[in-house]
């Protein structure tokens, strides 16, 4: 769930075409890249898939922060494999966005200029080893909550990317939980690290679903198009209901004194995250926004000679081939 507050575009096209398009979606058909689609549908998807792809890329950074310090060879290997999967998810998603007529370079430029966003969660730091467990357990857990329904999204390439991504994400979540188990059952220091990680990641994880959107016009349009399947509140509730027993099993305390089971609704009552903090993070004032963007900008700038070198070599090869023919 790496897309937050994606605005859907208004669309003013031929009503007959729009109705036929909506009928296809209602019938559960997949829309493929070459087929007609409303401009608003295309633009909203680019925004959503692009934001998701950027999140996978920026998401390498907080986890990469611990690869060189992973405490065992096995943990190091697992973390490397996970970060590699995330870069791979970024690649499928950029490819899915490309089928809508936007190049990866254009999307990258939009990220670097601040025109496009990535998930707020990656602007929080990973401060102790248990954070790597918490990221897998909570962050990937929240992501899965949103991405499982998106396997049924109406746009074919996005839906297929989600099917593949979900398989890997559930694996990551189990690995994250496994780290939390080891930490929670470990020495007093390890248990303190686990609780500290949960304290810091709980509310930012709840923010991943975005603010309540029950009255949002944008969400209604996206839901009609099956670009969005559930409301933010539905997903957040589901996430809390799933996560609380897992925290209890670990012997850790969710940092919410208001948290209690509500028999009537068959779910937990819980405190809302501090939405003013969320909006500050989105605006660029989170603890790591500056570092994350600086790292991506530096990778892009320092890599320019490399990308140009490869292009120049490809041109030389092509010219030599023509000359030989």
């Amino acid at each position, binding site marked *: 769930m790496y897309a937050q507050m994606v605005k859907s575009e208004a669309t003013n096209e031929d009503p007959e075409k729009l109705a036929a398009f909506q009928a296809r979606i209602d019938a559960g058909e997949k829309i493929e890249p070459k087929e007609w689609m409303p401009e608003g549908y295309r633009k909203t998807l680019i925004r959503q898939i692009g934001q998701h792809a950027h999140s996978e890329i920026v998401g390498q950074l907080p986890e990469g922060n611990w690869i060189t310090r992973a405490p*065992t060879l096995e943990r190091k*290997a697992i973390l490397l494999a996970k*970060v590699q999967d995330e870069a791979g998810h970024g*690649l499928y998603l950029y490819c899915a966005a490309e089928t809508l007529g936007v190049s*990866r370079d254009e999307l990258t430029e939009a990220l670097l200029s601040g025109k496009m966003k990535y998930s707020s969660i990656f602007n929080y730091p990973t401060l102790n080893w248990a954070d790597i467990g918490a990221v897998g357990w909570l962050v990937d857990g929240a992501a899965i909550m949103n991405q499982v329904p998106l396997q049924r999204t109406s746009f074919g390439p996005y839906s297929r990317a989600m099917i593949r991504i979900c398989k890997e994400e559930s694996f990551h979540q189990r690995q994250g939980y496994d780290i939390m188990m080891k930490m929670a059952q470990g020495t007093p220091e390890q248990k303190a690290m686990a609780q500290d990680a949960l304290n810091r990641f709980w509310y930012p994880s709840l923010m991943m679903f975005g603010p309540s959107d029950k009255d949002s016009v944008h969400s209604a349009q996206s839901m009609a198009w099956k670009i969005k399947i559930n409301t933010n509140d539905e997903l957040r509730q589901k996430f809390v209901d799933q996560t609380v027993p897992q925290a209890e099993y670990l012997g850790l305390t969710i940092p919410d004194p208001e948290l209690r089971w509500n028999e009537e609704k068959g779910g937990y009552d819980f405190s809302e995250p501090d939405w003013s903090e969320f909006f500050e993070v989105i605006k660029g004032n989170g603890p790591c926004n500056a570092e994350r963007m600086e790292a991506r900008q530096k990778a892009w700038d320092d890599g320019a*000679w490399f990308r*140009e070198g490869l292009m120049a070599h490809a041109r030389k090869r092509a010219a030599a081939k023509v000359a030989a023919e």
Partner: protein
Amino acid sequence: METVVDLDAALFEGLCRMGDTTLVLGHRVSEWCGHAPVLEEDIALANMALDLIGQTQLWLGLAGDVEGKGRDADALAFRRDAWEFRNLLLAERPNGDFGQTLMRQFLFDAWHQPMLKALEGSKDARIAEIAAKAGREVAYHLERSADLVIRLGDGTEESHKRMQAALDTLWPYTGEMMMADDVDRTLAEAGVMAAPDSIRPTWEALVAEVLGEAKLKAPEGAYMHKGGKQGTHSEHLGHMLATMQWLQRAYPDAKW
């Protein structure tokens, strides 16, 4: 130079040389995570680091068994100090720009691949088995690093300049890969590990071919640094281990 006659002691040394080299290089490669020039490189580097760390588990795991003192791969990786590390100096060279990282990888892969091929013929079945598995991964590493060295050497003026600078900087660290000492000779005579100097002809031919295609020129008559295999390292290794081993050292009683 130490003299080791006891075969098991020599074998422990030889296995640490392989495992420490893959560990240290894997660490260096993993430092790129999230910072590579294109997404495909992020994926390739993470994949390569993963292969190298996987190979470390096998080499150091076997080293621990051979030693017979109850140390496993993690104990060897995280609880030895710099002077006990036996990696090649080339592996601990800092990443530099992406050109230096790639050149280091190519110069190493061009040795690693034929070395593993030779180790497949080891009389010790455990070594032959690890070499066969690692060899499949490293064949791909070499294909990739050689291809990129060619493309960037013969790319733009700037990419050529950077690759030549990388080659000039790293070249003095290549000789150590092919220098044999008493440990190597003991192991080669017993038929358990290939002598490093036996790899030289293959390495030289491969490197000459790729550099030729890349329009790069190897420095002539360069001095060759040595000592990593015997535990005398550059200043860089201590800093790497301070990062790598920190959790294990700070919380020695913890299980992770």
